């Protein structure tokens, strides 16, 4: 009885204030009710932001144990794996990403990111963890081209020539061409279309360094033409730009010009570089 009275008097005291804020509250959307475990996820995120990876991982594990049917389970699984990765526990992270991908194949954005991160973990563990290289090789068949290229780049970093075909495909993908051409050159691969020798074309880069008697000649297949800029210093690149030379259109230009044509000739005082089509 006393408790009921007390509540009634409290309600009476707060009524005017409630009336005052009522119009404002009516405009704002009602705050969504906190889902079970939200506080735990917030805590895990705060720990992650503080780079307290181990505790963050424990918080995510606790969430997964206590709320296995929550709608936020995919998110928790993903961040658990990411936390393990940040903590450089590569094998555990790889296993956690695989668990996430196996349990939630429908997650598009998180799934793609999980695959890329998984490739990274495997890449770091190549030659050390038994599942790493086979995992990367299997990923060369992934439906997402960028994921395939990421796996091929990791294999190429370890000098694995099985990456070559995927890297060649990566030359055609937007945003991956530079990385793939560098990796292919690193593997000592010259890519060229299987055409008759009379029709085959190369970029020939002749570099004459000041104080050296010989001219160094580099031959690049047209598919790797984008790497030609790497043979130019910054000063030479600026010269090329000042001449209106567009390195991004090098392949097209080299295809249309007759053999023997000089595409570019620049000199920065330290070296002179001439690029011809042959």
């Amino acid at each position, binding site marked *: 009885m006393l408790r009921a009275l007390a509540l009634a008097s409290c309600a009476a005291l707060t009524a005017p204030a409630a009336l005052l804020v009522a119009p404002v509250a009516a405009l704002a959307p009602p705050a969504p009710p906190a889902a079970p475990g939200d506080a735990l996820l917030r805590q895990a995120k705060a720990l992650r932001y503080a780079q307290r990876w181990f505790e963050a991982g424990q918080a995510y594990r606790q969430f997964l144990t206590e709320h296995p049917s929550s709608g936020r389970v995919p998110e928790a699984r993903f961040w658990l794996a990411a936390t393990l990765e940040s903590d450089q526990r590569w094998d555990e992270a790889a296993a956690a990403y695989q668990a996430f991908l196996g349990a939630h194949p429908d997650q598009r954005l998180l799934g793609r990111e999980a695959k890329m991160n998984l490739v990274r973990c495997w890449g770091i563990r190549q030659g050390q963890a038994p599942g790493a290289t086979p995992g990367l090789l299997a990923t060369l068949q992934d439906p997402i081209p*960028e994921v395939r290229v990421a796996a091929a780049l990791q294999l190429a*970093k370890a000098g694995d020539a099985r990456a070559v075909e995927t890297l060649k495909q990566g030359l055609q993908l937007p945003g991956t061409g530079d990385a793939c051409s560098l990796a292919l050159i690193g593997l000592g691969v010259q890519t060229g279309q299987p055409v008759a020798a009379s029709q085959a074309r190369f970029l020939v880069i002749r570099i004459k360094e000041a104080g050296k008697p010989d001219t160094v000649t580099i031959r690049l297949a047209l598919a790797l033409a984008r790497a030609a800029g790497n043979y130019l210093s910054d000063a030479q690149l600026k010269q090329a730009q000042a001449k209106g030379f567009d390195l991004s259109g090098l392949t097209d230009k080299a295809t249309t010009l007759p053999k023997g044509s000089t595409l570019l000739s620049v000199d920065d005082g330290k070296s002179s570089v001439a690029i011809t089509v042959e």
Partner: protein
Amino acid sequence: MTPEPDPLTRDAQAFDLLEHPEAWPEDPALQAELAALLELHLALHAHPEVGEDLDATGPVRPLSRSFPWLMSAAAVLLVAVPLAYHAQNVRTMAEMSRNQARIQDLAQKRGQDRLWAGFFQQSSLLIQDFAKRPAACTSDKDNEDRSAEREVAFALLQASHKLSAQGAPGPDAEAVRSDLHAWLMELTLEDPCLDPRRAQELRQWANAHNLEDEAQRLGNLLKGETL
């Protein structure tokens, strides 16, 4: 024990043998060589003035008698000159090969550094943009429209994956890339219509790790001429 005959006597005996084909050994190869020498010997006899010129400057020794020495010298020259040429050629080729490998390595490093520099510079610009006050979302006026930044973050995140696969130019570059990667991942996985409190968290995170300055510093460092 018979004394060793002096070289002149040995040469004389050899020339005697040359002038008596009936005493030549049976071996056809040897016979052919001796026949060639005989031919040369006879030709020199037909031009004695060559021998006279030589005799005027030294002790009396007919050219025909010193001929084996000349032949040996010629043989040595015949072997030595191509060998010396070959050795020089090998040295030149090795030097060129070393130069080519060095230039290839430098070009690889230059290409890699440029990719990393581009990533750091664009990340730095994105963090700058993220600090600015954005437009409100059309659907929810209380939230920030971060769709443009989110798209850039996604592209940079993909670039970060590739850079990670390629290997870093240095440990500090890898450490900053890793921090940027985590930040980019957070932003990419957020709703494009971002809660201002969440945006503030992301800004604070970037500030706490000094991401903008570090990215700018490394971008400038790697963009510098490295060759």
